[in-house]
């Protein structure tokens, strides 16, 4: 896995995902629960939890990166635009740096919706344990 490698995946944010997140983390903020309330504030419908995206980062690292044992050290995310129920969000992550002595990878990522609008971007620093 070298600097410059790109990893991609896409995710359908469906009802199941939404409900799981809501019930696990118990965030009952009206913007996330109530369509009318969200519309009043200028959104299309209730907006999805931004932290779902962080979950997808976890998926990418675990499932696509060819590293056997890896831990996340730092993760930062900038939420640029809201995303909604039943949208397909695509993730593209690229390896920006590799610090060989400590086996740390700097990864940059971006989330886009199906209209290619940037939903969020950020960085994650991971360490390979072996």
């Amino acid at each position, binding site marked *: 896995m070298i600097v410059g490698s790109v*990893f991609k995946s896409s995710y359908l944010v469906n009802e199941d995902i939404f409900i799981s997140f809501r019930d696990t983390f118990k965030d009952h903020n009206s913007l996330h629960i109530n369509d009318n309330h969200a519309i009043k504030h200028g959104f299309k419908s209730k907006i999805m939890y931004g932290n779902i995206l962080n979950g997808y980062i976890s998926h990418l690292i675990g499932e696509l990166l060819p590293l056997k044992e890896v831990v996340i050290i730092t993760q930062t995310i900038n939420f640029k635009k809201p995303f909604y129920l039943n949208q397909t969000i695509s993730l593209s992550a690229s390896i920006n740096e590799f610090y060989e002595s400590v086996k740390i990878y700097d990864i940059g990522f971006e989330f886009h919706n199906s209209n290619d609008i940037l939903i969020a971007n950020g960085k994650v620093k991971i360490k390979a344990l072996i």
Partner: protein
Amino acid sequence: MKLAILGSYSTQILSKTLSHLNRELEVYEADYSQIDYEIINDESQLYKFKPDFIVIHETSLSFKKMSYKISNIDTPYYRQCISRLEKLIDKLNKVIPETKIIYPTLDLSNDMTFGNYFFKVPDSIDAQLHYYNYELTQLAIKKQNLFLLDINNLVFHNDEIRDERLVVTSDLHFSISFTKEIAISLNKIINASLGNFIKCIVLDLDNTLWGGIIGDDGIEGIQIGNLGIGKAFSEFQLWLKSLKERGVILCVCSKNDENIAKRPFIDHPDMILSLDDIAVFVANWKNKVENIQHIKDILNIGYDSILFIDDNAMERDMVKSAIDKILVPELPKDPALYKNYLIRENLFEITNYSGFDNERTKKYQEESNRKTLEISSFNIDNYLKSLSMKAEYELVSKTIIPRISQLTQRTNQFNARTIRYDEGKIKNISLDKNYIAIGFSLKDKFGKHGLVGLVILKIIDDVSIFIDTFTMSCRVFNRGFEYFIINYIKTIIEKRGFQYLVVEWIPTEKNVLVNEFYSSLGFKKFKNRKSKLNINDIKKHKYYIK
């Protein structure tokens, strides 16, 4: 090499350009408009210089100017001009018989005093211009040392031929850019005369002689003749055939199985080139540099006489960096433009022709059957490292389902089980927890190659996982990409706790490669075509993706 330039106009720019183009030329430029004087006078600087080549350049402007000065009105003007030229050539042949004379034809620019009616008025100066040019062609047949340059063909391929302001201020009869084109053409004739000309064309097959890939599209699918843009390739083949008839040797160098590569030549009704037209036919999976070395050895000519034509920029670049002297034109992307691009390059000047040589092609074919391919010293590792290849991995999901499905439909050669999946099936696989499907794209210094590989893994039980699909586009063969993919897959499945990888090779006419690949990884004893290996036992192979 000594070149003398005699012109009926200011020839400084022509001389200067020729000197720059060809450092081996020592140029003598006669004084302004001294053609007759230099040639008739035995003691002239021209004869003292003892040139190997003489360029005598006259133009329609000087032709027309002199016509007002003639006193003899019984003989048509053009006849007087041709007589005069013939006398000059005879004199040159007497004093310096070894010297070659190059005389560009007159540019057929029309003063429009008769419009197009001049054709019906033999006495008109515009008609005389055409007659003179015709007489030139007859003179060129008669006089062995006289070579003409077709100015009007150059006009066809260029803009801005004449700059009237330069005619008026400096007696320059052609624009600077067109003068340069004339110089380039003159230089090609000179080089041809010195034996530096193209003797052999080495041709790629896929997307060069036909549209598509014979290994994947089959004989029904490749485009020649009326199918798709087949016409572009037919035109191209026709042109190549005429070159072959004229004595240029045609060879094939293709990355394909030999039998598959030869099929269109034998079976396709629209193929214009036949196997008989090809002196040396090389189709294998070795790199092209080695193959071209092999061809060169059989033909026993220099690399600088070989032209290599391939639509693939990477192949062109690889050959060009390994073999400095070989000529590798940068083909335009559109096949419809191949022929004209090569025509414009004017690569086939000769100064000697003894008629169609049937025997030579046969001789090379026999020679090539005898010789075995030798290992070259070309270092492919270094070249592939220099490509800076980077891979892209994508979990198969909604966005790429159509391209993934297409890959399973179209790939034939590197395809382990040749199972065709439509979009619906791919979608189901992407949602099924028992499958892991990953697409691979490749990028190198030439650009993005798009989706070129696919692996679909199916979980058998807690410790074993099966490669349901492994396909790779032939575009990325010979880079070790398949080993790169396997190495990646290995890590992914190890992570999830699997210990055994199971593979299956379903043999077809086209996918022998896969058997070799799996064997090289250590998969043996194909029982019911399946084979199982502990992940730790999978053999590592070098790959060229840094």
